[in-house]
Protein backbone atom coordinates (compact mmCIF):
# COMPACT_ATOMS: atom_id res chain seq x y z
CA UNK A 1 0.00 0.00 0.00
CA UNK A 2 1.03 3.60 -0.52
CA UNK A 3 2.19 5.53 2.50
CA UNK A 4 1.32 9.23 2.74
CA UNK A 5 3.16 12.14 4.32
CA UNK A 6 0.26 12.48 6.76
CA UNK A 7 0.73 8.90 7.89
CA UNK A 8 4.44 9.48 8.40
CA UNK A 9 3.69 12.46 10.65
CA UNK A 10 1.15 10.45 12.57
CA UNK A 11 3.46 7.43 12.93
CA UNK A 12 6.26 9.66 14.15
CA UNK A 13 3.97 10.95 16.89
CA UNK A 14 2.81 7.42 17.75
CA UNK A 15 6.26 5.85 17.80
CA UNK A 16 7.32 2.38 16.68
CA UNK A 17 5.23 0.33 19.07
CA UNK A 18 1.90 2.01 18.33
CA UNK A 19 2.62 2.04 14.60
CA UNK A 20 3.31 -1.69 14.73
CA UNK A 21 0.33 -2.71 16.82
CA UNK A 22 -2.31 -0.07 16.18
CA UNK A 23 -1.64 0.52 12.48
CA UNK A 24 0.06 -2.50 10.93
CA UNK A 25 -1.49 -5.27 13.02
CA UNK A 26 -5.15 -4.62 12.04
CA UNK A 27 -4.08 -4.79 8.39
CA UNK A 28 -2.29 -8.08 9.03
CA UNK A 29 -5.41 -9.36 10.79
CA UNK A 30 -7.53 -8.62 7.74
CA UNK A 31 -5.10 -10.54 5.53
CA UNK A 32 -4.51 -13.51 7.83
CA UNK A 33 -7.44 -15.52 9.20
CA UNK A 34 -4.98 -17.61 11.20
CA UNK A 35 -3.53 -14.67 13.16
CA UNK A 36 -3.23 -14.71 16.94
CA UNK A 37 -1.76 -11.85 18.99
CA UNK A 38 -0.71 -12.61 22.58
CA UNK A 39 0.12 -10.16 25.33
CA UNK A 40 1.08 -10.62 28.97
CA UNK A 41 -1.12 -7.96 30.54
CA UNK A 42 0.29 -5.14 28.43
CA UNK A 43 -2.50 -4.68 25.90
CA UNK A 44 -2.99 -1.02 26.69
CA UNK A 45 0.68 -0.20 26.96
CA UNK A 46 1.30 -1.94 23.63
CA UNK A 47 -1.52 0.00 21.96
CA UNK A 48 -3.41 -3.24 21.42
CA UNK A 49 -6.64 -2.16 23.13
CA UNK A 50 -8.35 -1.18 19.89
CA UNK A 51 -7.07 -4.32 18.19
CA UNK A 52 -8.47 -6.47 20.98
CA UNK A 53 -11.85 -4.78 20.60
CA UNK A 54 -11.94 -5.09 16.82
CA UNK A 55 -10.47 -8.59 16.62
CA UNK A 56 -11.40 -10.34 19.89
CA UNK A 57 -11.03 -13.78 18.29
CA UNK A 58 -7.46 -13.05 17.30
CA UNK A 59 -6.34 -11.70 20.64
CA UNK A 60 -5.34 -13.44 23.87
CA UNK A 61 -4.21 -11.89 27.14
CA UNK A 62 -2.38 -14.49 29.25
CA UNK A 63 -1.88 -12.31 32.30
CA UNK A 64 1.49 -11.53 33.83
CA UNK A 65 2.91 -14.88 32.78
CA UNK A 66 5.47 -14.36 30.05
CA UNK A 67 6.85 -17.90 30.08
CA UNK A 68 3.41 -19.41 29.68
CA UNK A 69 2.80 -16.97 26.82
CA UNK A 70 5.68 -18.47 24.83
CA UNK A 71 4.45 -22.02 25.38
CA UNK A 72 0.90 -21.07 24.38
CA UNK A 73 2.31 -19.31 21.32
CA UNK A 74 4.19 -22.50 20.45
CA UNK A 75 1.08 -24.66 20.86
CA UNK A 76 -0.94 -22.34 18.63
CA UNK A 77 1.82 -22.25 16.01
CA UNK A 78 1.99 -26.07 16.02
CA UNK A 79 -1.70 -25.98 15.13
CA UNK A 80 -1.13 -23.66 12.17
CA UNK A 81 -1.56 -20.19 13.62
CA UNK A 82 0.56 -17.19 12.71
CA UNK A 83 1.38 -16.00 16.22
CA UNK A 84 2.65 -12.68 17.57
CA UNK A 85 3.69 -12.59 21.22
CA UNK A 86 4.65 -9.31 22.80
CA UNK A 87 5.85 -7.79 26.01
CA UNK A 88 8.87 -5.77 27.13
CA UNK A 89 11.94 -6.78 25.13
CA UNK A 90 13.85 -7.82 28.21
CA UNK A 91 11.06 -10.08 29.45
CA UNK A 92 10.62 -11.79 26.10
CA UNK A 93 14.32 -12.23 25.35
CA UNK A 94 15.76 -12.87 28.79
CA UNK A 95 13.07 -14.20 31.13
CA UNK A 96 11.57 -16.34 28.37
CA UNK A 97 14.85 -17.39 26.83
CA UNK A 98 14.68 -21.12 27.49
CA UNK A 99 11.06 -21.37 26.41
CA UNK A 100 11.97 -19.55 23.20
CA UNK A 101 14.96 -21.83 22.66
CA UNK A 102 13.16 -25.08 23.40
CA UNK A 103 9.99 -24.33 21.48
CA UNK A 104 10.46 -21.66 18.84
CA UNK A 105 14.09 -22.24 17.89
CA UNK A 106 14.25 -26.00 18.37
CA UNK A 107 10.95 -26.67 16.58
CA UNK A 108 11.31 -23.69 14.19
CA UNK A 109 7.79 -22.49 14.87
CA UNK A 110 6.05 -19.60 13.13
CA UNK A 111 6.00 -17.20 16.09
CA UNK A 112 7.00 -13.54 15.95
CA UNK A 113 8.34 -12.14 19.20
CA UNK A 114 7.88 -8.41 19.43
CA UNK A 115 10.04 -6.92 22.15
CA UNK A 116 8.96 -3.42 23.09
CA UNK A 117 10.82 -0.63 24.88
CA UNK A 118 14.16 -2.12 23.82
CA UNK A 119 17.31 -0.30 24.80
CA UNK A 120 16.61 2.20 27.56
CA UNK A 121 13.30 3.62 26.36
CA UNK A 122 11.85 2.86 29.79
CA UNK A 123 14.56 5.17 31.04
CA UNK A 124 13.30 6.10 34.47
CA UNK A 125 12.15 2.57 35.28
CA UNK A 126 15.73 1.37 35.56
CA UNK A 127 17.54 -1.78 34.61
CA UNK A 128 14.57 -4.13 35.09
CA UNK A 129 12.74 -2.55 32.16
CA UNK A 130 15.72 -1.97 29.88
CA UNK A 131 16.73 -4.47 27.24
CA UNK A 132 20.45 -4.41 26.62
CA UNK A 133 21.27 -8.06 25.92
CA UNK A 134 18.26 -9.15 23.86
CA UNK A 135 20.12 -9.10 20.54
CA UNK A 136 22.86 -11.26 22.04
CA UNK A 137 20.49 -13.93 23.27
CA UNK A 138 18.13 -14.00 20.30
CA UNK A 139 20.98 -13.99 17.80
CA UNK A 140 22.50 -17.09 19.40
CA UNK A 141 19.38 -19.20 18.82
CA UNK A 142 19.53 -21.42 15.72
CA UNK A 143 17.03 -20.41 13.04
CA UNK A 144 15.97 -17.18 14.74
CA UNK A 145 15.71 -14.08 12.55
CA UNK A 146 16.59 -10.89 14.45
CA UNK A 147 15.43 -7.42 13.38
CA UNK A 148 15.62 -3.97 14.93
CA UNK A 149 13.60 -1.01 13.66
CA UNK A 150 15.17 2.42 13.14
CA UNK A 151 11.90 4.34 13.14
CA UNK A 152 8.12 3.99 12.79
CA UNK A 153 8.22 3.62 9.01
CA UNK A 154 10.60 0.73 9.34
CA UNK A 155 8.56 -0.78 12.20
CA UNK A 156 5.52 -0.71 9.91
CA UNK A 157 7.46 -2.33 7.07
CA UNK A 158 8.85 -5.01 9.39
CA UNK A 159 5.36 -5.83 10.61
CA UNK A 160 4.20 -6.38 7.03
CA UNK A 161 7.25 -8.49 6.22
CA UNK A 162 7.01 -10.56 9.39
CA UNK A 163 3.50 -11.72 8.52
CA UNK A 164 4.75 -13.15 5.22
CA UNK A 165 7.91 -14.74 6.63
CA UNK A 166 7.49 -18.29 7.96
CA UNK A 167 9.62 -19.15 11.00
CA UNK A 168 10.64 -17.71 14.35
CA UNK A 169 11.53 -14.03 14.37
CA UNK A 170 12.47 -11.48 17.00
CA UNK A 171 11.67 -7.83 16.30
CA UNK A 172 13.21 -5.24 18.58
CA UNK A 173 11.11 -2.13 18.85
CA UNK A 174 12.66 0.77 20.65
CA UNK A 175 11.32 4.23 20.39
CA UNK A 176 8.94 6.43 22.20
CA UNK A 177 6.13 8.67 21.02
CA UNK A 178 7.51 11.46 18.84
CA UNK A 179 10.34 9.26 17.68
CA UNK A 180 12.89 10.84 15.32
CA UNK A 181 12.27 9.67 11.77
CA UNK A 182 14.95 8.33 9.49
CA UNK A 183 12.80 7.37 6.52
CA UNK A 184 9.98 8.92 4.55
CA UNK A 185 7.14 7.62 2.43
CA UNK A 186 9.56 6.53 -0.31
CA UNK A 187 11.40 3.99 1.84
CA UNK A 188 11.59 0.51 0.35
CA UNK A 189 12.34 -2.00 3.10
CA UNK A 190 14.56 -4.79 1.87
CA UNK A 191 14.66 -7.61 4.42
CA UNK A 192 18.08 -9.05 5.25
CA UNK A 193 19.76 -6.18 3.37
CA UNK A 194 21.63 -3.30 4.98
CA UNK A 195 20.06 0.05 4.10
CA UNK A 196 22.56 2.77 3.12
CA UNK A 197 21.33 6.24 4.12
CA UNK A 198 24.28 8.25 2.90
CA UNK A 199 27.61 7.50 1.29
CA UNK A 200 31.03 8.79 2.36
CA UNK A 201 34.63 7.75 2.02
CA UNK A 202 36.36 7.73 5.44
CA UNK A 203 34.21 6.11 8.11
CA UNK A 204 31.31 3.66 7.92
CA UNK A 205 28.82 4.28 10.73
CA UNK A 206 26.66 1.17 11.02
CA UNK A 207 23.70 1.70 13.32
CA UNK A 208 20.65 -0.24 14.37
CA UNK A 209 17.44 0.91 16.08
CA UNK A 210 17.49 4.45 17.43
CA UNK A 211 21.24 4.59 16.83
CA UNK A 212 20.60 4.95 13.10
CA UNK A 213 19.28 8.45 13.69
CA UNK A 214 22.18 9.09 16.04
CA UNK A 215 24.60 7.89 13.35
CA UNK A 216 23.15 10.44 10.93
CA UNK A 217 23.71 13.16 13.54
CA UNK A 218 27.25 11.88 14.15
CA UNK A 219 27.97 12.04 10.42
CA UNK A 220 26.84 15.68 10.34
CA UNK A 221 29.26 16.61 13.14
CA UNK A 222 32.12 14.71 11.55
CA UNK A 223 31.51 16.23 8.14
CA UNK A 224 32.13 19.67 9.68
CA UNK A 225 35.56 18.33 10.71
CA UNK A 226 36.25 17.10 7.21
CA UNK A 227 35.55 13.43 7.94
CA UNK A 228 33.31 11.83 5.36
CA UNK A 229 30.93 9.15 6.64
CA UNK A 230 28.78 6.45 5.18
CA UNK A 231 25.69 5.83 7.32
CA UNK A 232 24.20 2.33 7.20
CA UNK A 233 21.19 0.82 8.93
CA UNK A 234 21.60 -2.83 9.86
CA UNK A 235 17.95 -3.51 10.54
CA UNK A 236 18.39 -7.25 10.04
CA UNK A 237 21.02 -8.47 12.47
CA UNK A 238 20.48 -12.11 11.63
CA UNK A 239 20.88 -13.36 8.95
CA UNK A 240 23.73 -10.96 8.34
CA UNK A 241 24.18 -9.10 5.04
CA UNK A 242 27.75 -10.13 4.23
CA UNK A 243 27.77 -8.63 0.76
CA UNK A 244 27.09 -5.08 1.89
CA UNK A 245 29.36 -5.42 4.93
CA UNK A 246 32.25 -6.54 2.68
CA UNK A 247 31.67 -3.52 0.51
CA UNK A 248 31.75 -1.26 3.59
CA UNK A 249 34.98 -2.88 4.85
CA UNK A 250 36.61 -2.49 1.42
CA UNK A 251 35.83 1.20 1.06
CA UNK A 252 36.37 2.74 4.49
CA UNK A 253 39.25 3.37 6.89
CA UNK A 254 37.22 2.79 10.05
CA UNK A 255 34.09 0.83 10.93
CA UNK A 256 31.91 2.15 13.75
CA UNK A 257 29.00 0.03 15.00
CA UNK A 258 26.35 1.86 17.03
CA UNK A 259 23.67 0.13 19.07
CA UNK A 260 21.53 0.86 22.10
CA UNK A 261 22.65 -2.45 23.58
CA UNK A 262 25.55 -4.06 25.38
CA UNK A 263 28.66 -4.22 23.19
CA UNK A 264 29.02 -7.91 24.04
CA UNK A 265 27.17 -10.12 21.59
CA UNK A 266 25.09 -7.46 19.91
CA UNK A 267 25.03 -6.06 16.39
CA UNK A 268 28.65 -4.89 16.64
CA UNK A 269 29.73 -8.39 17.60
CA UNK A 270 27.82 -9.80 14.63
CA UNK A 271 29.70 -7.42 12.33
CA UNK A 272 33.03 -8.27 13.99
CA UNK A 273 32.44 -12.02 13.73
CA UNK A 274 32.16 -11.69 9.97
CA UNK A 275 34.97 -9.14 9.70
CA UNK A 276 37.33 -11.49 11.55
CA UNK A 277 37.04 -14.02 8.74
CA UNK A 278 38.39 -11.55 6.15
CA UNK A 279 41.91 -10.31 5.45
CA UNK A 280 42.88 -6.62 5.44
CA UNK A 281 39.77 -5.09 6.94
CA UNK A 282 39.66 -1.77 8.81
CA UNK A 283 39.50 -1.52 12.59
CA UNK A 284 36.15 -1.40 14.33
CA UNK A 285 34.89 0.80 17.14
CA UNK A 286 32.07 -0.64 19.25
CA UNK A 287 29.59 2.02 20.36
CA UNK A 288 27.08 0.65 22.85
CA UNK A 289 26.68 -0.02 26.54
CA UNK A 290 30.20 -0.78 27.85
CA UNK A 291 29.25 -4.01 29.62
CA UNK A 292 27.72 -2.17 32.55
CA UNK A 293 24.44 -0.89 33.88
CA UNK A 294 23.94 2.63 35.13
CA UNK A 295 21.61 4.63 37.31
CA UNK A 296 18.19 5.45 35.88
CA UNK A 297 17.30 8.85 34.48
CA UNK A 298 16.22 10.32 31.17
CA UNK A 299 17.20 8.50 27.98
CA UNK A 300 19.57 11.36 27.18
CA UNK A 301 21.20 11.05 30.62
CA UNK A 302 21.70 7.28 30.23
CA UNK A 303 23.05 7.60 26.70
CA UNK A 304 25.56 10.15 27.96
CA UNK A 305 26.67 7.82 30.74
CA UNK A 306 27.39 5.21 28.07
CA UNK A 307 28.97 7.63 25.59
CA UNK A 308 26.59 6.84 22.76
CA UNK A 309 25.20 10.31 21.91
CA UNK A 310 26.18 11.75 18.53
CA UNK A 311 28.67 14.33 19.89
CA UNK A 312 30.34 11.68 22.04
CA UNK A 313 30.55 9.20 19.18
CA UNK A 314 32.01 11.93 16.95
CA UNK A 315 34.72 12.60 19.55
CA UNK A 316 35.52 8.89 19.83
CA UNK A 317 35.78 8.60 16.07
CA UNK A 318 38.09 11.64 15.81
CA UNK A 319 40.39 10.19 18.46
CA UNK A 320 40.57 6.93 16.59
CA UNK A 321 41.16 8.23 13.09
CA UNK A 322 44.94 8.17 13.72
CA UNK A 323 45.25 4.43 13.54
CA UNK A 324 46.49 3.65 17.04
CA UNK A 325 44.96 0.69 18.84
CA UNK A 326 41.54 1.19 20.30
CA UNK A 327 40.46 -0.10 23.68
CA UNK A 328 36.77 -0.83 23.63
Amino acid sequence: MTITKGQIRSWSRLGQRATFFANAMPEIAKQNDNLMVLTADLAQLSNLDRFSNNFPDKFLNVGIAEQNMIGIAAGLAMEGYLVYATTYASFIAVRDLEHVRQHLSNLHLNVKLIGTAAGVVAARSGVAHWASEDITFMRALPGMTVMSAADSVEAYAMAQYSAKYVGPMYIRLNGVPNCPMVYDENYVFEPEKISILQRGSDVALIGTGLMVHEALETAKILSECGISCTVANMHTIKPIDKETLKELFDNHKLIVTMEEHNIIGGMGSAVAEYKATLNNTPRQIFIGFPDSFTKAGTTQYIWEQFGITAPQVAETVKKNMGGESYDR
Partner: protein
Amino acid sequence: MCINTSLENVSRLKEMSIRMRKMALDMALSAGAKGAHIGGGFSCMEIMAVLYGEVLRVDPKDPVRPERDRLLISKNHCTIAHFPALVEKGYIKESDLSSYTVNGSRLIGYPYDPEIGLEYSGGSLGMAISVGVGQAISAKKKGMDYKVYVLMGDGELNEGSIWEAFMSARQFRLGNLVVIIDRNHLCYDGTTEDVMQLGDLCAKMSSFGFNTINCNGHDIADLLRAFDMTADDVPNVIICDTVKGKGLSFAENRPEWHQKAITQEQYDTALADLMGGKVL
Protein backbone atom coordinates in the same frame (compact mmCIF):
# COMPACT_ATOMS: atom_id res chain seq x y z
CA MET B 1 -15.71 -39.79 28.02
CA CYS B 2 -16.29 -43.12 26.31
CA ILE B 3 -13.96 -45.60 28.02
CA ASN B 4 -14.31 -49.37 27.94
CA THR B 5 -13.98 -50.39 31.59
CA SER B 6 -14.90 -54.03 31.05
CA LEU B 7 -12.91 -56.84 32.65
CA GLU B 8 -11.90 -58.08 29.22
CA ASN B 9 -10.42 -54.68 28.40
CA VAL B 10 -8.61 -54.51 31.73
CA SER B 11 -7.09 -57.91 31.08
CA ARG B 12 -6.11 -56.93 27.50
CA LEU B 13 -4.39 -53.75 28.70
CA LYS B 14 -2.67 -55.62 31.50
CA GLU B 15 -1.17 -58.00 28.97
CA MET B 16 -0.13 -55.05 26.85
CA SER B 17 1.56 -53.48 29.84
CA ILE B 18 3.43 -56.70 30.61
CA ARG B 19 4.72 -56.83 27.02
CA MET B 20 5.78 -53.19 27.32
CA ARG B 21 7.59 -53.91 30.59
CA LYS B 22 9.48 -56.73 28.88
CA MET B 23 10.46 -54.40 26.01
CA ALA B 24 11.54 -51.74 28.51
CA LEU B 25 13.78 -54.22 30.30
CA ASP B 26 15.34 -55.13 26.96
CA MET B 27 15.92 -51.44 26.22
CA ALA B 28 17.49 -50.88 29.62
CA LEU B 29 19.81 -53.85 29.14
CA SER B 30 20.72 -52.79 25.59
CA ALA B 31 21.74 -49.35 26.91
CA GLY B 32 24.63 -51.12 28.67
CA ALA B 33 26.91 -49.19 30.96
CA LYS B 34 25.40 -45.86 29.82
CA GLY B 35 22.34 -46.75 31.83
CA ALA B 36 18.72 -45.81 31.26
CA HIS B 37 16.06 -43.71 32.92
CA ILE B 38 14.66 -46.67 34.81
CA GLY B 39 12.73 -45.13 37.69
CA GLY B 40 10.40 -42.70 35.91
CA GLY B 41 9.93 -45.09 33.00
CA PHE B 42 8.65 -48.00 35.04
CA SER B 43 6.45 -45.74 37.17
CA CYS B 44 4.35 -44.68 34.17
CA MET B 45 4.14 -47.99 32.25
CA GLU B 46 0.48 -48.66 32.98
CA ILE B 47 -0.40 -45.01 32.32
CA MET B 48 1.19 -45.36 28.86
CA ALA B 49 -0.57 -48.69 28.27
CA VAL B 50 -3.96 -47.20 29.09
CA LEU B 51 -3.30 -44.07 27.02
CA TYR B 52 -2.19 -45.88 23.88
CA GLY B 53 -4.28 -48.99 24.39
CA GLU B 54 -7.58 -47.30 25.16
CA VAL B 55 -7.74 -43.54 25.57
CA LEU B 56 -5.91 -41.83 22.70
CA ARG B 57 -7.76 -41.43 19.42
CA VAL B 58 -4.71 -41.65 17.17
CA ASP B 59 -3.89 -43.62 14.05
CA PRO B 60 -0.30 -44.52 13.15
CA LYS B 61 -1.37 -44.89 9.51
CA ASP B 62 -2.46 -41.24 9.52
CA PRO B 63 -0.18 -39.85 12.24
CA VAL B 64 -0.76 -36.12 11.79
CA ARG B 65 -4.49 -36.19 11.09
CA PRO B 66 -5.76 -32.84 12.42
CA GLU B 67 -8.53 -34.51 14.45
CA ARG B 68 -6.15 -36.76 16.43
CA ASP B 69 -5.71 -36.44 20.17
CA ARG B 70 -2.43 -34.87 21.22
CA LEU B 71 -0.15 -36.37 23.85
CA LEU B 72 2.71 -34.25 25.11
CA ILE B 73 5.24 -36.06 27.27
CA SER B 74 6.53 -33.41 29.62
CA LYS B 75 8.44 -35.80 31.89
CA ASN B 76 10.39 -36.97 28.89
CA HIS B 77 12.75 -39.15 30.92
CA CYS B 78 10.47 -42.10 30.33
CA THR B 79 11.17 -43.15 26.77
CA ILE B 80 11.58 -46.75 27.93
CA ALA B 81 7.84 -46.67 28.66
CA HIS B 82 6.78 -44.41 25.78
CA PHE B 83 8.57 -46.18 22.94
CA PRO B 84 7.22 -49.66 23.79
CA ALA B 85 3.74 -48.08 23.75
CA LEU B 86 4.51 -46.74 20.26
CA VAL B 87 5.48 -50.29 19.26
CA GLU B 88 2.19 -51.63 20.62
CA LYS B 89 0.23 -48.99 18.74
CA GLY B 90 2.15 -49.64 15.51
CA TYR B 91 4.14 -46.42 15.10
CA ILE B 92 7.50 -48.17 15.27
CA LYS B 93 8.77 -51.75 15.24
CA GLU B 94 10.08 -53.59 18.27
CA SER B 95 13.39 -53.99 16.44
CA ASP B 96 13.70 -50.17 16.36
CA LEU B 97 13.85 -49.94 20.15
CA SER B 98 17.50 -50.82 20.65
CA SER B 99 18.46 -47.83 18.45
CA TYR B 100 17.41 -45.41 21.20
CA THR B 101 21.00 -45.06 22.38
CA VAL B 102 22.60 -45.09 18.91
CA ASN B 103 24.29 -41.86 17.73
CA GLY B 104 22.03 -39.85 15.45
CA SER B 105 19.19 -42.39 15.46
CA ARG B 106 15.58 -41.37 15.08
CA LEU B 107 14.81 -42.33 18.67
CA ILE B 108 17.82 -41.03 20.59
CA GLY B 109 17.31 -38.09 22.95
CA TYR B 110 13.86 -36.57 23.18
CA PRO B 111 12.98 -36.16 19.53
CA TYR B 112 10.08 -34.25 17.99
CA ASP B 113 8.80 -36.53 15.25
CA PRO B 114 5.02 -36.48 14.75
CA GLU B 115 5.21 -39.07 11.96
CA ILE B 116 5.97 -41.68 14.65
CA GLY B 117 3.72 -40.18 17.29
CA LEU B 118 6.31 -38.01 19.04
CA GLU B 119 4.33 -34.79 19.37
CA TYR B 120 6.78 -32.88 21.52
CA SER B 121 10.46 -32.61 22.33
CA GLY B 122 10.67 -32.37 26.09
CA GLY B 123 13.48 -32.93 28.52
CA SER B 124 13.66 -29.51 30.10
CA LEU B 125 10.98 -29.93 32.71
CA GLY B 126 7.85 -27.93 33.16
CA MET B 127 7.46 -26.56 29.66
CA ALA B 128 5.07 -28.88 27.81
CA ILE B 129 1.95 -27.87 29.70
CA SER B 130 1.98 -24.36 28.22
CA VAL B 131 2.21 -25.84 24.73
CA GLY B 132 -0.70 -28.11 25.60
CA VAL B 133 -2.71 -25.08 26.69
CA GLY B 134 -1.99 -23.49 23.30
CA GLN B 135 -3.11 -26.62 21.45
CA ALA B 136 -6.25 -26.89 23.57
CA ILE B 137 -7.10 -23.23 22.88
CA SER B 138 -6.63 -23.94 19.17
CA ALA B 139 -9.07 -26.87 19.31
CA LYS B 140 -11.71 -24.72 20.97
CA LYS B 141 -11.24 -21.87 18.51
CA LYS B 142 -11.51 -24.21 15.54
CA GLY B 143 -14.42 -26.18 17.01
CA MET B 144 -12.45 -29.44 16.91
CA ASP B 145 -13.10 -32.12 19.48
CA TYR B 146 -9.63 -33.55 19.98
CA LYS B 147 -8.25 -33.68 23.47
CA VAL B 148 -4.81 -32.66 24.67
CA TYR B 149 -3.12 -34.99 27.17
CA VAL B 150 -0.01 -33.86 29.01
CA LEU B 151 1.95 -36.41 31.03
CA MET B 152 3.92 -34.77 33.81
CA GLY B 153 6.09 -35.92 36.66
CA ASP B 154 5.43 -34.82 40.22
CA GLY B 155 8.98 -33.49 40.69
CA GLU B 156 8.61 -31.08 37.81
CA LEU B 157 5.70 -29.43 39.59
CA ASN B 158 8.41 -27.43 41.37
CA GLU B 159 8.75 -25.40 38.16
CA GLY B 160 6.95 -22.07 38.41
CA SER B 161 5.69 -21.64 34.87
CA ILE B 162 3.59 -24.81 35.29
CA TRP B 163 1.36 -22.90 37.68
CA GLU B 164 1.04 -20.06 35.18
CA ALA B 165 -0.20 -22.69 32.73
CA PHE B 166 -2.61 -24.26 35.23
CA MET B 167 -4.11 -20.84 35.94
CA SER B 168 -4.58 -20.18 32.24
CA ALA B 169 -6.12 -23.62 31.62
CA ARG B 170 -8.94 -22.72 33.95
CA GLN B 171 -9.15 -19.11 32.75
CA PHE B 172 -9.73 -20.33 29.19
CA ARG B 173 -12.00 -23.17 30.39
CA LEU B 174 -10.01 -25.88 28.66
CA GLY B 175 -12.25 -28.89 29.25
CA ASN B 176 -10.36 -30.58 26.43
CA LEU B 177 -7.15 -30.65 28.49
CA VAL B 178 -6.21 -33.65 30.59
CA VAL B 179 -3.11 -33.40 32.75
CA ILE B 180 -1.79 -36.72 34.00
CA ILE B 181 0.61 -36.58 36.92
CA ASP B 182 2.87 -39.56 37.53
CA ARG B 183 2.99 -39.10 41.31
CA ASN B 184 5.90 -41.42 42.08
CA HIS B 185 7.00 -39.30 45.05
CA LEU B 186 10.66 -39.14 44.02
CA CYS B 187 12.78 -36.59 42.24
CA TYR B 188 16.52 -36.82 41.49
CA ASP B 189 17.82 -36.04 44.97
CA GLY B 190 15.26 -37.71 47.18
CA THR B 191 11.56 -37.67 47.96
CA THR B 192 9.45 -34.85 46.59
CA GLU B 193 8.40 -34.03 50.12
CA ASP B 194 11.99 -33.75 51.41
CA VAL B 195 13.39 -31.83 48.46
CA MET B 196 10.48 -29.44 47.82
CA GLN B 197 7.18 -30.47 49.26
CA LEU B 198 4.07 -30.65 47.13
CA GLY B 199 1.85 -31.14 50.16
CA ASP B 200 -1.80 -31.73 49.40
CA LEU B 201 -1.49 -31.85 45.63
CA CYS B 202 -5.14 -32.74 45.19
CA ALA B 203 -6.23 -29.64 47.11
CA LYS B 204 -3.77 -27.50 45.18
CA MET B 205 -5.10 -28.66 41.83
CA SER B 206 -8.71 -28.30 42.92
CA SER B 207 -8.00 -24.78 44.11
CA PHE B 208 -6.68 -23.99 40.63
CA GLY B 209 -10.08 -24.96 39.26
CA PHE B 210 -9.23 -28.40 37.91
CA ASN B 211 -11.52 -31.41 37.90
CA THR B 212 -9.18 -33.45 40.09
CA ILE B 213 -9.19 -37.24 39.96
CA ASN B 214 -7.01 -39.57 42.01
CA CYS B 215 -6.13 -43.12 41.06
CA ASN B 216 -3.66 -45.96 41.50
CA GLY B 217 -1.33 -45.51 38.54
CA HIS B 218 -0.45 -49.20 38.32
CA ASP B 219 -4.02 -50.47 38.48
CA ILE B 220 -5.43 -50.66 34.96
CA ALA B 221 -9.06 -50.75 36.08
CA ASP B 222 -8.55 -47.74 38.32
CA LEU B 223 -6.80 -45.82 35.53
CA LEU B 224 -9.69 -46.54 33.16
CA ARG B 225 -12.14 -45.35 35.81
CA ALA B 226 -10.12 -42.15 36.21
CA PHE B 227 -10.09 -41.34 32.50
CA ASP B 228 -13.79 -42.10 32.40
CA MET B 229 -14.37 -39.40 35.04
CA THR B 230 -12.82 -36.56 33.05
CA ALA B 231 -15.05 -33.54 32.56
CA ASP B 232 -15.39 -31.48 29.40
CA ASP B 233 -16.15 -28.03 30.83
CA VAL B 234 -13.09 -27.49 33.04
CA PRO B 235 -9.51 -28.76 32.76
CA ASN B 236 -8.81 -32.17 34.22
CA VAL B 237 -5.97 -33.61 36.22
CA ILE B 238 -5.49 -37.28 37.01
CA ILE B 239 -3.08 -37.72 39.90
CA CYS B 240 -1.71 -41.24 39.51
CA ASP B 241 -0.18 -42.67 42.65
CA THR B 242 2.78 -44.73 41.45
CA VAL B 243 6.06 -46.34 42.53
CA LYS B 244 9.27 -45.14 40.92
CA GLY B 245 11.04 -48.16 39.42
CA LYS B 246 7.86 -50.26 39.79
CA GLY B 247 8.45 -53.93 39.09
CA LEU B 248 12.19 -53.86 39.64
CA SER B 249 12.43 -54.98 43.28
CA PHE B 250 16.00 -53.66 43.61
CA ALA B 251 15.05 -50.25 42.20
CA GLU B 252 11.62 -49.49 43.63
CA ASN B 253 11.46 -46.21 45.56
CA ARG B 254 15.21 -45.69 45.29
CA PRO B 255 16.21 -42.27 43.96
CA GLU B 256 19.55 -43.52 42.61
CA TRP B 257 17.62 -45.57 40.04
CA HIS B 258 16.43 -42.38 38.31
CA GLN B 259 19.10 -43.24 35.78
CA LYS B 260 21.31 -46.29 36.15
CA ALA B 261 22.74 -49.26 34.30
CA ILE B 262 21.04 -52.61 34.76
CA THR B 263 23.05 -55.85 35.08
CA GLN B 264 22.15 -59.16 33.41
CA GLU B 265 21.38 -60.58 36.86
CA GLN B 266 19.05 -57.71 37.70
CA TYR B 267 17.40 -58.07 34.30
CA ASP B 268 16.82 -61.77 34.97
CA THR B 269 15.32 -61.02 38.40
CA ALA B 270 12.98 -58.35 37.04
CA LEU B 271 11.90 -60.52 34.12
CA ALA B 272 11.22 -63.49 36.39
CA ASP B 273 9.12 -61.29 38.70
CA LEU B 274 7.20 -59.91 35.73
CA MET B 275 6.50 -63.30 34.17
CA GLY B 276 5.76 -64.83 37.56
CA GLY B 277 2.92 -62.38 38.10
CA LYS B 278 4.59 -60.52 40.94
CA VAL B 279 4.40 -57.07 39.34
CA LEU B 280 0.87 -56.62 38.08
